[in-house]
């Protein structure tokens, strides 16, 4: 009788042990689950913050690009070519104008479209051009390449080169003018 009671006691203890352990394991599972949730949340949060950071970075980068491009646009030098002439024009004078236009069409079409390179053909006999002719001291045929950068003007007088080469050595004149314009378009 005593032996039977002991057996029952052992079985009960075992069952209770099993129940307790299963309960513990459930709790562990729950804990694990909670930890998973947390880590998932953490990962999610990290991912979210990464996304936000990326977005922030992109927006900062974008804004800096915009700023840079605005600055770049502001910083690009402009070139204006002033071709002065009298009312009665000679062959050399016409040759200078033709060669200048050819230079712009051949090598600076993009810059002309953007407004970075411009040609002004001006008759010095015309009263409307009096001020600009006085500024450049142009009393007859003359060719000036002007660089405008950061409100500063630099002027190169190519009148002599024009008369020396434009009519008889057009290619040489075009090369000279091209180099001068390229030099003036550089940011330095």
């Amino acid at each position, binding site marked *: 009788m005593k032996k039977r009671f002991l057996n029952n006691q052992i079985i009960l203890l075992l069952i209770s042990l099993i129940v307790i352990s299963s309960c513990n394991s459930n709790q562990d599972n729950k804990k694990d689950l909670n930890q998973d949730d947390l880590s998932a949340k953490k990962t999610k949060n990290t991912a979210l913050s990464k996304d936000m950071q990326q977005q922030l970075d992109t927006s900062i980068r974008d804004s800096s690009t915009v700023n840079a491009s605005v600055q770049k646009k502001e910083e690009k030098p402009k070139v204006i070519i002033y071709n002065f002439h009298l009312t009665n024009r*000679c062959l050399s004078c016409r040759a200078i104008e033709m060669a200048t236009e050819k230079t712009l069409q051949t090598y600076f079409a993009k810059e002309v479209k953007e407004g970075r390179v411009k040609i002004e053909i001006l008759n010095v006999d015309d009263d409307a051009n009096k001020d600009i002719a006085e500024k450049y001291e142009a009393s007859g045929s003359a060719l000036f390449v002007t660089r405008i950068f950061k409100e500063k003007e630099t002027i190169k007088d190519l009148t002599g080169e024009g008369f*020396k080469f434009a009519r*008889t050595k057009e290619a040489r004149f075009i090369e000279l003018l091209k180099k001068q314009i390229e030099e003036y378009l550089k940011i330095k």
Partner: protein
Amino acid sequence: MKKLFLFIISVMFSMQIFSQINADTIISNDKNKLRVQVLYFHITDRCNTCRSIEANVRKTIDAYFQKELKSGELDLYILNCELQKNDSLVKIYDAYGATLAITPCVKGKAGKIEDITTWAFQKVHNSDVFLSELKEKIEKYIK
């Protein structure tokens, strides 16, 4: 009579050509005396501005350097750059169109060429300024 008439005409014609050559270029080519050369190149089809530059150069020399021109200290060249006979000078002076240059000379040796074409086109329409400034430019080589 007809022959005589033709002879007179031909003599007059040749004299005119001869005088034209003399008027174009005035050189003594005396290497020991030569101090400065003034050269003006032009193309065959000349415009008023080009002719004015030549006229102003001549005026300057007539007004201030007659003595040097006669003594051989100064040589004046007026040259058509499109004529084959001037090819060698055209190459030296890079003068393929209207070009005004001054070259100092010491004991027959030519010094550094001063190309004043741009200056000439700038000042040509103000004769007084052209004359006085060209005078200074030439004088600095003669002194």
